[in-house]
């Protein structure tokens, strides 16, 4: 079980973004994805929860299986019950007038029970307990990102895909977010982290996917991928200090 991506290619009307990508994500993995800007990382993330090919227009080929569900044959809503997605900019994901409403949004869409317990638990995990009645707009950027993670956690998906969740945060808040992800992974969640900071990837991930120009150029354990310093330099990716 887990996620299997087989020969996936995707192109927008004028641009080919993903080129014959294949890899597997097993349950409980903590996988990092790194690559230069515009290489197709976000597009790949959209493939994992069915937004591609169901909602985003373009030419899709190949197969993405989430457990036994083919993303092309199921709705985004069905896939989203298994794969949660956290985006880069929390300002464009959070829209409710209270923290509680924001977290309840996904829970209610999926018709899940124990709403109150889920809200409290997810806020506790990200360290925002007691924030239920606060206005999301008045939270700091780090707290907003934690809230967007909490809102995905409340849906209790097996896999969490995060698209550069710390790109707008300072080191302290970024570290805090990564610690939360590590804790979740230890509790059994599968984490797929798109991140440009290779130091964080080296510290937290079990394996790394290295992406360039729509292709996976390396898929191996963190140590092995980051040992390829020449390849990293060639692709314009920072060689991590911690290896």
């Amino acid at each position, binding site marked *: 079980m887990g996620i299997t991506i087989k020969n996936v290619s995707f192109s927008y009307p004028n641009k080919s973004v993903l080129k014959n990508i294949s890899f597997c994500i097993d349950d409980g993995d903590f996988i990092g994805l790194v690559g230069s800007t515009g290489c197709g990382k976000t597009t790949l993330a*959209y493939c994992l*929860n069915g*937004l591609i090919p169901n*909602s*985003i227009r373009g030419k899709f080929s190949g197969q993405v299986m989430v457990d036994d569900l083919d993303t092309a044959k199921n*709705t*985004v*809503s069905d896939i*989203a*019950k298994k794969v*949660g*997605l956290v*985006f880069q*900019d929390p*300002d*464009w*994901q*959070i*829209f*409710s*007038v*209270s923290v509680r409403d924001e977290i309840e*949004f*996904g829970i209610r*869409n*999926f018709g899940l029970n124990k709403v109150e317990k889920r809200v409290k638990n997810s806020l506790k995990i990200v360290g925002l307990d007691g924030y239920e009645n606060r*206005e999301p*707009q008045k939270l700091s950027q780090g707290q907003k990102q934690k809230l967007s993670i909490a*809102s*995905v956690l409340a*849906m209790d998906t097996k896999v969490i895909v995060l698209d550069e969740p710390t790109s707008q945060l300072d080191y302290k808040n970024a570290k805090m977010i990564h610690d939360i992800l590590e804790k979740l992974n230890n509790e059994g969640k599968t984490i797929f982290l798109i991140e440009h900071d290779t130091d964080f990837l080296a510290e937290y991930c079990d394996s790394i996917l290295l992406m360039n120009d729509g292709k996976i150029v390396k898929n191996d354990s963190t140590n092995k991928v980051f040992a390829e310093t020449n390849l990293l330099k060639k692709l314009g990716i920072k060689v991590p200090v911690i290896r």
Partner: protein
Amino acid sequence: MNTKIKILLLVVFSTCILFIRNPFIISLVLLCVSFSIFLLKVHSKLFEWIKPIIIVSIFIILLQTFTYSPIKFTIEGLTFGITISLRLITLLILVFAFVSTTSTKQLLEGFDFLPKELSMMLMIALRLLPLVKDETTRIVNAQKARGLNFKTLNIFKSYFPVLVPLFGKMLEGSNRLAIAMESRGFEKK
């Protein structure tokens, strides 16, 4: 006070004001509303709100005074101009009183009788307003930093470099918001 009652009162008062023709009665309502705003201690931004309307009102009074009967000063025109201006100011102060005493959350709760899709649209629109404001400030500052002088250009030329990236950003942002909502189970109908 319950927001639904507030909305109802706002609609009833506003409608009444549109039908009252006697400027003395409108003045009396205006005085009462202004007094209650001072009692509620929410008057700090009132002048900021009514400043542009006062300028518009002066223009209306002058226009009505001299055009009620073609190019001639008339008392009727003056009275009519004052009545319209008083109506405008009273309506504005009523809306100000409503907005200053109602939080966004209360406002949305007040509209919960609307269909789910409509209240969701209203909530998102209200939520995005501060983002649009912040984004506009950011773009204006960025263009100023690149030497754009808003005072020396005409209104179209000066706002073009602001509006184009702003619309681009808003379209991109709303697309991202839709994707985020969909990935949390919100289905398109």
